[in-house]
């Protein structure tokens, strides 16, 4: 039963496009010249920035889907919301990890108390809390409603993280791409970054789509179990009997 449903997650052109785009983006990243001051380690930037932009996108999906769920009470939107939160948490964790790898050779430490770093870590924990909240109940409607409200509150973290470098002017790099007066980068570096943004944007979209299908399948399984349609755990196990024993074990 389950394997048939798992197969129901269809492969699409999006998955293929995401993989191809990542290969192309990595090619751009490795072929671009090393940074004059940071050297080879600067190549991590071509993954670091696109991945956090992917996380923002995923959290935005969570926010919009949460609002749509509250408006419609359609579980489809809850499936999109959990997809956004889960993919966003993974990508934020990846961003923090890549950032720490970059920070050690550049700043001499894995972690520094930059406002953006700290607020990104807090954003990670906010959405981890969202996922923990979802695990606290098995009732689909209750879970969807509670987490939708929390998802709507959680979105405030994104502007805080994004504008933190402008507000505090800390050690973290100031915006170089998403700034009002346009991106300030060399053309070669900008192309590599653009390839990364497209590639990891597609990866985010592909992950969101697959996680949505998984959430839909999980919801169907939960619904079937709630209605008593599925096999109960242990039902396939019969009590041991001795040879010649004719007694019946009453259930």
């Amino acid at each position, binding site marked *: 039963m389950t394997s048939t449903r798992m197969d129901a997650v269809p492969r699409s052109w999006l998955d293929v496009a995401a993989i191809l785009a990542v290969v192309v983006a990595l090619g751009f990243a490795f072929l671009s010249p090393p940074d004059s001051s940071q050297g080879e380690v600067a190549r991590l930037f071509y993954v670091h920035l696109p991945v956090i932009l992917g996380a923002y996108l995923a959290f935005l999906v969570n926010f919009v889907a949460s609002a749509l769920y509250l408006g419609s009470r359609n579980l489809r939107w809850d499936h999109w919301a959990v997809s956004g939160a889960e993919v966003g948490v993974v990508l934020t964790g990846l961003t923090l990890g890549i950032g720490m790898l970059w920070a050690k050779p550049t700043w001499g430490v894995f972690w520094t108390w930059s406002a953006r770093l700290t607020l990104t870590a*807090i954003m990670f924990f906010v959405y981890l809390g969202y996922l923990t909240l979802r695990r606290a109940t098995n009732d689909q409607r209750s879970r969807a409603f509670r987490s939708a*409200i*929390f998802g*709507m509150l959680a979105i405030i973290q994104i502007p805080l993280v994004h504008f933190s470098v402008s507000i505090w002017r800390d050690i973290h790099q100031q915006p170089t791409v998403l700034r009002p007066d346009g991106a300030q980068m060399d053309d070669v570096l900008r192309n590599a970054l653009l390839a990364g943004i497209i590639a990891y944007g597609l990866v985010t979209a592909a992950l969101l789509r697959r996680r949505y299908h998984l959430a839909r399948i999980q919801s169907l399984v939960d619904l079937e179990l709630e209605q008593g349609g599925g096999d109960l755990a242990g039902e396939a196990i019969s009590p041991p009997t001795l040879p010649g024993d004719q007694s019946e074990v009453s259930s």
Partner: protein
Amino acid sequence: MTAPLWPQIKAVTGRDLSRERRSGEVAWVTIPFGAIALLLIPLAVGADIPLLRRIGPGLFWAVVMLFGILIAVRRTAAETGAQRDLVALLGIDPAAGFAGKAVASAVLLVGFELIVGVVAVLLYDIDLTRWPWLLVIVPGVAIGLALLGTLTSSIAANLDSGAALIPFLVAPLSVPLLLGATQALDPLRPSNGILPWVMLLLAVDLVLAIAGVLTARPLQETR
């Protein structure tokens, strides 16, 4: 015909404050606990008076946030599902219930901030040249934390791991309140830079109040 909201809010606030008067949980447990935290920190970082004077305000607000959460969500551990059902059957408007609980928590939080604040000023020799702003910031933080705690408690009500889960949900979401308070009172900030941070604090309070009132009824029905 529905009963006016204000008497209901007053009744719920009175109930929560009476419960506190009888149990003394905030007065005899949380406030001394917060004061102990302020005493422990210098033992950990060393008796460097200029350093402690500089970090004192930030430590005070961090203690307010972390220990204030205990005040804002204290009711979750005490209130049972049967009590919530009884309040619903009595016809208390869920929005009034939310507001009443938040007001009671805010009153207790203001008390906590004032007492622990005096301890912090005495221990850390905190600069109070901008004290008039405290008249807005202290209640602003208390109201924000009370609203956040009450809303999150409603979201996680009747869940198996609710009591353990709520502080985890509230702590990271309280960051805008912490930033509003600490940045507004930063002694290095020019006077004209204070107002935006106070406005952030008040805006967060407003958003939380609207969210709490709007979601009170559906959350009660969800349980």
